[in-house]
């Protein structure tokens, strides 16, 4: 308890004071609904552009419209893994509890986006390539990324001691992050070696600007959604981890009073 107070005094008004779970908890509570609202608005605009404004693709017809969900989900799944590994590294180096909680709050969302990217990809592949799945480099590395997410989640869930869970999870996240480029390039090379395949993911480079706009807006919506969900999840994690402290008791009492 003493060290926590000292730390707060030392940091004073610096931005680092939000590294304390107690300080971050209310901030996350304020920000999360705003990001959720933003995500809803952006998704509505993006989907409207995607389904009603963007022109029909002359090669793929209406099927291509799945990219408005597929591409942002794929981007997000990769980005979240990097952010997760970043927070894991920060946690290991600076020994901040909140960083580990942030990493753990992000993992399920990353896995979800990974799954969405694979699922929508399969739905797109069926009419376009005539098959739900090909062992294409991108598909395969996305699948392996999903396994990396699942491994991280499974490991942090399997360890009961939260301190050990944090650190063990951080190590596997970092090992995974080192391996992601290796996996990506090896899979790509493997694929090009074996190929002879008729299917390629490369599309025509030019893209109608409304299509691009819709996709970018959907990507922003995915960002906002990730922020909102991660903040909510980290709030639950903070409450769970800090349940022995006085401020959590006071906070819960206050919430009960409101309800």
């Amino acid at each position, binding site marked *: 308890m003493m060290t926590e107070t000292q730390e707060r005094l030392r940091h004073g008004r610096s931005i680092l004071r939000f590294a304390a779970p107690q300080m971050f908890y209310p901030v996350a509570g304020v920000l999360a609904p705003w990001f959720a609202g933003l995500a809803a608005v952006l998704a509505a605009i993006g989907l409207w552009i995607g389904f009603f404004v963007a022109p029909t693709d002359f090669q793929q017809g209406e099927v291509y419209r799945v990219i408005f969900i597929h591409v942002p989900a794929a981007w997000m799944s990769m980005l979240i893994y990097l952010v997760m590994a970043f927070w894991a590294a920060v946690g290991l180096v600076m020994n901040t509890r909140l960083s580990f909680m942030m990493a753990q709050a992000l993992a399920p969302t990353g896995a979800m986006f990974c799954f969405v990217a694979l699922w929508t990809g399969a739905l797109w592949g069926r009419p376009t390539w005539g098959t739900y799945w090909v062992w294409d480099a991108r598909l395969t590395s996305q699948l392996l990324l999903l396994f990396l997410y699942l491994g991280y989640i*499974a490991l942090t869930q399997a360890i009961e001691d939260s301190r050990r869970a944090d650190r063990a999870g951080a190590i*596997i996240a970092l090992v995974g992050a080192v*391996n992601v480029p*290796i996996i990506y390039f090896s899979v790509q090379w493997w694929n090009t070696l074996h190929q002879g395949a008729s299917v390629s993911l490369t599309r025509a480079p030019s893209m109608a600007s409304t299509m691009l706009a819709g996709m970018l807006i959907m990507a922003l919506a995915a960002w906002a959604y990730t922020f909102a969900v991660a903040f909510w999840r980290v709030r639950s994690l903070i409450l769970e981890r800090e349940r022995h402290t006085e401020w959590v008791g006071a906070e819960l009492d206050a919430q009960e009073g409101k309800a």
Partner: protein
Amino acid sequence: MLKGILGPFLAVLRRDLMLAWRGRADVLVTLAFFIIVVCLFPFGVGAETNQLRAIAPGVLWVAALLSTLLSLHRLFAQDHADGTLEQLLLSPEPTVLWVTAKVSAHWIVTGLPLVLAAPGLALLFDVEQGALGVLTLSLALGSPILALLGAVGAALTLGLRGGGVLLALLVLPLFVPVLIFGAGAVDAYLGGTGATAHLLLLGGGLLGALALAPFACAAALRIAIE
């Protein structure tokens, strides 16, 4: 200087090898598993010679990967149970040093027999004789990478309930590049492009894993014990 480093390294290596030698039956199970898995494939896919020849490198490599996985839990579990691991961590010797020694001993005991058995098994699949050398070399370079990466996973899951399945989930995705280049080396040789590039990449991967994995493993062990 060198003696100061080699001394503890060799001591741990010798100890682990001796322990393995005294419990030979345990070790042979891994080899038996490897052989049986390889022999199951013709029953599954049919005994057509051309087909067997085509899948042989992949089958041998996947089987090597699975048997490595199966043996990994033994790497630290016994020492963890009897307290040796704690004593090693408390000792003044660098953790990375004896971790490397333990992984080396583990590979000699479980990996090396697979490498030696592989050419014989490849003959069952009617693999071209010239490719046997490439296959053995690829396994000799690749299986230590599996042991090193697996050691990190074994340290992270030390003493956990359901650790074995969890270990598989953690390390199998990381094994994929090794599998690709390992099995790819033989395919490239048979395809006429030459296996040099694959083998060099495997060698590079081995050096990289040797440089980095012991540190991750040491950190994981400290987390598991504290």
